[in-house]
């Protein structure tokens, strides 16, 4: 393998890793606050991609507008899912909300099949993303640069919200001690809703970029990336945003690089994530940056 090829694989890894990371952040934020694995998150990702598709084909919106609108609509949808499916179960045993999440996942998949039909749809890609840029020997699709860059800015925005705003302070408080957050006057349900909104917005962004990279939409397209991003979140330490980003990137690199160096393993590509999950659960169940139980007060 020469340097040019390596750089290409490196950029591909970064792209795929960023997409996983964006989804993983949503899993980890919701888990951090509610101790709930939001299994419907992969469907939120799928719907984000579909909304852009409909924005482009039905309403003929320009690309950037369709993208922003889709992110906003998906964020609202994520908040709605919380209101309908999880909020009534806040005081119920945790397993109830988990079952509800699995139910929402199937529900959204089937709604998508009914409304969008099961036939795969092709997504139109804007031209400026199609023409490869030549950097020396390296041929790069603008998309390969666009995805990590946009992901980076979105993550910076997230860091700003979580660490520099009042709502972020509320999130960090709730994730540690729900009851005391109530006593401090934190409007807990509103902060939780915003958390769902942010997680869903990031998943939508990921879904849209995913659809640009693999330009085919299907109602079940969120299942596998959803599971993998969940694994990335567990690998990084569920509840930790930094962990989710690292986990997503690591998974992206493992998938692309293993296939690059051992092409004969390409058929097992989807299995790598699950091997990683088994390994991390055996060796360090709390994940790379997960909270150690003794940290809890």
């Amino acid at each position, binding site marked *: 393998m020469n340097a040019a090829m390596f750089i290409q694989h490196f950029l591909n890894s970064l792209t795929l890793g960023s997409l996983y990371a964006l989804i993983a952040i949503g899993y980890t934020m919701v888990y951090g606050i509610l101790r709930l694995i939001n299994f419907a998150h992969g469907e939120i990702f799928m719907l984000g991609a579909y909304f852009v598709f409909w924005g482009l084909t039905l309403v003929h919106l320009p690309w950037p507008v369709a993208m922003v609108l889709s992110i906003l609509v998906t964020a609202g949808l994520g908040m709605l899912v919380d209101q309908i499916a999880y909020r009534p179960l806040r005081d119920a045993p945790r397993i109830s909300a988990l079952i509800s999440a699995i139910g929402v996942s199937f529900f959204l998949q089937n709604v998508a099949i009914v409304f969008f039909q099961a036939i795969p749809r092709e997504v139109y890609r804007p031209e400026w993303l199609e023409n490869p840029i030549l950097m020396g020997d390296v041929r790069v699709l603008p998309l390969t640069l666009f995805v990590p860059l946009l992901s980076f800015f979105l993550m910076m925005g997230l860091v700003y919200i979580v660490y520099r705003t009042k709502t972020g302070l509320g999130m960090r408080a709730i994730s540690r001690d729900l009851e005391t957050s109530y006593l*401090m006057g*934190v409007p807990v349900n509103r902060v939780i809703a915003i958390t769902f909104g942010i997680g869903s917005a990031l998943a939508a962004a990921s879904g849209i970029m995913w659809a640009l990279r693999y330009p085919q939409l299907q109602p079940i397209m969120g299942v596998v990336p959803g599971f993998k991003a969940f694994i990335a979140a567990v690998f990084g330490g569920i509840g930790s945003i930094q962990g989710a980003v690292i986990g997503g990137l690591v998974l992206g690199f493992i998938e692309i690089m293993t296939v690059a160096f051992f092409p004969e393993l390409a058929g097992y590509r989807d299995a790598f994530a699950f091997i990683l999950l088994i390994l991390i659960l055996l060796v360090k169940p709390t994940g790379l940056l997960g909270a150690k139980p003794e940290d809890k007060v």
Partner: protein
Amino acid sequence: MLKVEDLHVYYGGIHALKGISLEVPKGAIVTLIGANGAGKSSALRAIAGLVKNKKGSISYKGKDISHTQPVEIVKSGIVMSPEGRRIFPHLSVMENLHLGAYSRSDKDGVEKDIKWVFELFPRLRERQEQKGGTLSGGEQQMLSVGRALMSQPDVIMLDEPSLGLAPLLVKDVFEIIREVNRQGKTVLLVEQNAFAALKAAHYAYVLETGIITLSGKGEELLADDRVRKAYLGG
């Protein structure tokens, strides 16, 4: 100012409070003493809006607040510093104080009150950038009280503020309580340290397995034989 009438609280199958009534007049220090499990914390938690399963009435400034959400109770001027201090160990002292002011939107007022809390507790000023979890027990107690004060309360409820502190610090804690009271705050204090609590309080209630068995002025109860036997070691 704060009035509780015939309050019942249930946890699962447990009847934790069996109809207690108490009154907290403006500007007073009122204490609720009793053994472990008598229901003292349940009373405070019910007033703070944390307990859903309850009966009876809780009124504040003439308004019924027995079905009010915790956030609204904080806004109305009643705040609670919970048992075990419950400061956020992963957040800085400053962030903890800002959380206490979460229900407020007057930024200048919040900054002013942070200065005021730092004047009350100079140790917190020195440690403002430190994580809450790195503070000593006494400092954490200061932070817990300071954080509660940040919501601009009229009534501050303290749940076992002296619990787990060295005897020397216990004295400090009660000095803090008196100082907070001098600053114009009404105090509802729950304590196992009956002696210190009765000495500090204007009025006191004794709680036994969910029922108020005795009440009176702090110094009266301090002299009462039954109280001496049960809570003050003879």
